[in-house]
């Protein structure tokens, strides 16, 4: 335990130090400007001190972001418009809905592609093409079209989130379902097993490690999708909306606090999938 803590702390320390350095460097011009306008000379220590406490710094210092995050989470009721818990929950619910749709779709498509050569030839190129279209171009269209049908709120966001998350699951599962070797497949042939039996007894269990690897990518992609979906809609809640309103008003601390909240959320989600992976693979006897 101790042996892994030390390197991690070292890396974190280096990052924070670099961040502080960058904050000083990037916020200094504004501090100098202000001082020149007021006709005062700043000593180096005064200059550095000023770069740490600006209200709208170009790059907020780590402690400012931490403080913004802390007050965002605990500084008010969770129902408040300024609560990061509220915004986080809005984004999280869309993320989870999108992840469920995306993972389900990815698995279903992968199964049909592996079971049928026609599906393989006809579906896969479209799936790949879908990912070459930038999400930023698709998101506004989906939201506008659905809004005109009277569908708003969670569902359009979940759809965009699913659009990003189905692909890694599809690719991972196609690989996983094709993981069994020729001998394992021949064995089933000698039992005269049906295609469905082959799927249940061999291909699906064999694909589990691949599934979980792709689910970790997919859940992070789901979060990105949900946040992007909150950008174009003029949404008023969600971490994406928080990012957007922060950039309107030059509230860099708010932007960074929202970004941090998103990063923490992503790390938490990936960790949960990782835990699930451990439990399932151990139960299957595949983790030693």
């Amino acid at each position, binding site marked *: 335990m101790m042996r892994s803590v030390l390197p991690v702390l070292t890396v974190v320390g280096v990052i924070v130090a670099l961040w502080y350095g960058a904050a000083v460097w990037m916020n200094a011009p504004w501090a100098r400007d202000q001082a020149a306008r007021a006709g005062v000379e700043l000593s180096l220590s005064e200059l550095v001190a000023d770069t740490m406490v600006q209200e709208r710094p170009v790059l907020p210092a780590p402690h400012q972001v931490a403080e913004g995050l802390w007050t965002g989470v605990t500084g008010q009721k969770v129902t408040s418009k300024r609560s990061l818990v509220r915004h986080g929950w809005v984004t999280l619910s869309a993320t989870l809905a999108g992840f469920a749709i995306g993972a389900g779709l990815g698995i279903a498509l992968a199964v049909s592609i592996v079971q049928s050569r026609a599906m393989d030839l006809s579906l896969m190129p479209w799936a790949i093409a879908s990912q070459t279209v930038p999400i930023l171009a698709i998101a506004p269209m989906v939201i506008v079209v659905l809004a005109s049908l009277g569908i708003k709120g969670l569902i359009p966001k979940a759809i965009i989130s699913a659009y990003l998350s189905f692909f890694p699951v599809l690719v991972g599962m196609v690989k996983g379902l094709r993981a069994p070797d020729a*001998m*394992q497949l021949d064995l089933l*042939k*000698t*039992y*005269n097993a049906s295609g469905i039996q082959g799927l249940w*007894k061999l291909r699906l269990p064999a694909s589990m490690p691949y599934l979980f690897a792709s689910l970790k990518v997919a859940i992070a992609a789901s979060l990105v999708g949900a946040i992007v979906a909150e950008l174009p809609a003029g949404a008023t809640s969600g971490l994406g909306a928080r990012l957007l309103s922060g950039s309107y008003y030059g509230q860099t601390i708010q932007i960074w606090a929202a970004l941090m909240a998103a990063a923490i959320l992503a790390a938490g989600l990936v960790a949960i999938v990782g835990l699930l992976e451990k439990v399932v693979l151990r139960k299957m006897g595949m983790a030693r």
Partner: protein
Amino acid sequence: MSLHEAPAIEAKEVSLTFETADGPVHALSDVNLTVARGDFVSFIGPSGCGKTTFLRCVAALEHPTEGLLRVNGLSADEARRRRAFGYVFQAAGLYPWRTIAGNIRLPLEIMGFPREEQDRRVEEVLELVDLKGFGRKYPWQLSGGMQQRASIARALSFDADILLMDEPFGALDEIVRDRLNEELLKLWARTGKTIGFVTHSIPEAVYLSTKIVVMSPRPGRITDVIESSLPRERPLEIRDTPEFIEISHRVREGLRAGHSYE
């Protein structure tokens, strides 16, 4: 001829050519062989002479490009559909996410045996291959030899007429091999199954078989078929009898002759 009188395996002028990127590979050519029901037939020959390929043809995992192949009087495919064979591959190939008992249960689940029947048969074959008490272990918790025995148990569990074994004991030490050879003979005597057995070992082939098929490579042909004169009842000491040594000698001669064709 009724189905019950038909030989277990009947091959007439069977040839198989693999079309590969580097041109055709003649894995089998003009193979003629009749295996009666209840025979124990061994296939022996140098590496690449088509032993595995022939076994795979019998199990309908490969299809001859020419010739006629009947299994229990049916086409190989039809016999496969009727689940006529248990196949033991060169490697154990157990599913890592299933316990040993779960692996042995696999064919029983697929063939729709009732649950109690499954449990009964799993216990039975586990005992047969001397793995009693290992049912709940996962494959990686067992040695290679134990895994191979588990894969034999898996092939035995559903009680197919014909047992096809591709070098099942190749990776085992001499002592364990002797034991399993004895067990296999007992099993064969008790069940009356037809067994097709691939090996590289002359003593093993002679000890086990009623019929020894000697093959030679390029293209895969049968050079000799030896009907063993040994009694069906075979203690391990039989390997020191003059009769045993004479048959071994003939097999060796057959193998030499095959090589001189190259």
